């Protein structure tokens, strides 16, 4: 073989280079560290489940599950304590339901407007404003609901209590609006332009195109947005803890105040809550219910969203 070929760095030299070996070791170590960071998410989920289930276990050893699910009163502080989650659950669903009743129509109009009507320049100005709305701390929304909107609404809605489900529900609806809009607008914009062109070619207006082509095309994505938003409304804490009152109340009237699951947990945490008592375990049992509800909606939303992403 020619001597010119033998010059310079050789495979053997590279393989034995201390510098490169140290580089390889560092790369290995970093891979392990990065994996640990990623695996942490699984650990967190595991820890959440473990904490909720083990502490709830304490609770359900003393309170039968049937009583927990069917009793209509939640009075853990009374001498004759009753542990029925229904009052907390109905209040939670009332507030979240009102939020959805606000966020669904507004979100639909707004996301169709942003994805189908607004010019790119307009959109670039509007989306940051929506993000700002999403950035407002929830405790500030709570203040707004209790001390501004409720006194104002009292003048128009007869029978509205100082603490009620209606106003916090409404405020939560505004609060989750940016979230709904952002996900469903993404879904709508992912609908291929060719589908729209087909509809325009038939002479459809933008409006008709949006409702007969774009929304059906983005249906699973838009649905996912509402499922995820509902999960958020169910788990929202500060607005209801401040403005819906802390009194467990099984009611069919949203003008009354009633404690949600989250408000109950806040109320108990604010007081003196000795570790290991039944009172202590109630917040984990109710937290477990909350977690399961949000988990169900989140997983459903996640699956729909993934399905939608695969479709386009």
């Amino acid at each position, binding site marked *: 073989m020619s001597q010119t070929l033998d010059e310079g760095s050789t495979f053997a030299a590279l393989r034995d280079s201390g510098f490169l070996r140290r*580089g*390889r070791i560092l*790369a290995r170590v970093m891979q392990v560290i*990065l994996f*640990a*960071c*990623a695996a*942490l*998410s*699984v650990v*967190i*989920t595991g820890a*959440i489940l473990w*904490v909720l289930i083990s*502490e709830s276990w304490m609770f359900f050893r003393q309170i039968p599950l049937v009583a927990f699910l069917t009793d209509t009163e939640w009075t853990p502080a009374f001498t004759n304590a009753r542990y029925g989650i229904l009052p907390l659950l109905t209040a939670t669903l009332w507030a979240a339901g009102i939020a959805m009743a606000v966020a669904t129509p*507004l979100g639909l*109009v*707004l996301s169709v*407007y*942003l994805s189908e*009507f*607004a010019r790119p320049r307009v959109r670039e100005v*509007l989306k940051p*404003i*929506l*993000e*700002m*709305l999403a*950035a*407002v*701390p929830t*405790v*500030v929304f*709570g*203040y*707004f609901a209790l*001390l*501004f909107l409720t006194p104002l609404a009292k003048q128009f809605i007869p029978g509205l209590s100082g603490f009620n489900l209606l106003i916090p529900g409404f405020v939560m609806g*505004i609060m989750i609006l940016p979230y709904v809009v952002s996900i469903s607008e993404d879904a709508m914009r992912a609908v291929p332009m060719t589908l729209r062109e087909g509809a325009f070619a038939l*002479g*459809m*207006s*933008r409006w*008709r195109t949006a409702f007969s082509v774009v929304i059906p095309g983005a249906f699973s994505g838009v649905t996912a947005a509402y499922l995820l938003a509902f*999960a*958020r409304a169910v788990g929202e*804490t*500060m607005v209801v803890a401040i403005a819906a009152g802390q009194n467990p109340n099984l009611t069919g009237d949203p003008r009354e105040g009633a404690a949600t699951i*989250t408000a109950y*947990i*806040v109320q108990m*945490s604010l007081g003196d809550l000795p*570790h290991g008592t039944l009172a202590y375990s109630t917040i*984990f049992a109710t*937290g477990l219910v909350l*977690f399961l509800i*949000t*988990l169900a*909606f989140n997983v459903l939303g*996640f699956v729909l969203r993934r399905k939608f992403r695969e479709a386009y």
Partner: protein
Amino acid sequence: MAGGFSERRIVATAKVQDLTFAVLGVIVLFFAMAMLATLVADLLIDGLGRINAQFLTDFPSRRPEEAGILSAWVGTSLVMFVTALLAIPLGIGAGLYLEEYAAKNWLSDLIEINVSNLAGVPSIIYGLLALGFFVYGLGLGQTVLVGGMVLALLILPIVVVATREAVRAVPSGLRESAYGLGCNRWQVVWSYVLPSARPGILTGAIVGLSRAIGETAPIITIGALTFIAFLPPSPIQAAPPFLNFDWLNSPFTVMPIQMFNWTSRPQAGFHVNAAATGVLLLGMTLIMNGFAIYLRYHLRKGQRS
């Protein structure tokens, strides 16, 4: 021509429909913006006048006009410091692993589903986790460290998702040429992928931290006190080693809790204090988000050219 006439009518109807909907869209938009504006105006009217040196340098008090948020803003600063220190590196690490390392297998799928599920877990559940695990399980107590840890867990998914998006936007040609030069994976990630993804990651980190600043529920759940009339020990001391970590184990309160506490009082004087705290909180979160939006806007402009 009858045909022309009816075509014209269809076009006219379509135009009216479109206009109607566009007007509806604008109305909804204005409604949302009006809510935001009203909220800001309400807070400013109620609370702006209360913000003064006394308010920032006094501890909470039973008399509203003597109360201040010194312990709250110091607590918020310390907690946010811990949160940033934990959430940013961990989130970047997880995001990098998922984008650059993870093979397509069940484990990666599990981690991925987990991260997106964690993003949807209500914040108060994180509070329960911290109460059961950090406070009692590990016996850490109701301290700055635990507050920082729980908020870090809470915003971890935000940082992870932002990192993943930023990393995914790095052109694959950049990776191929770096690998082609003989870089190992860590060198490619550290020297090429991370610098390119930095602005996007920074945006996500800022958005995450702004969320953490305003977060109340998990901090209440771990049992942070609402009435704190002292400051944690200073992190800096005169004697060597000059740094003091006792503040990590100190009880604390944060601004959103102070605001919640004052909002829940019946006296109007405390409501003014709450509004003033709200103005400061809102100002911080809006400035942080505004900065993030500005960063992203510049980032996009940079990518175009």
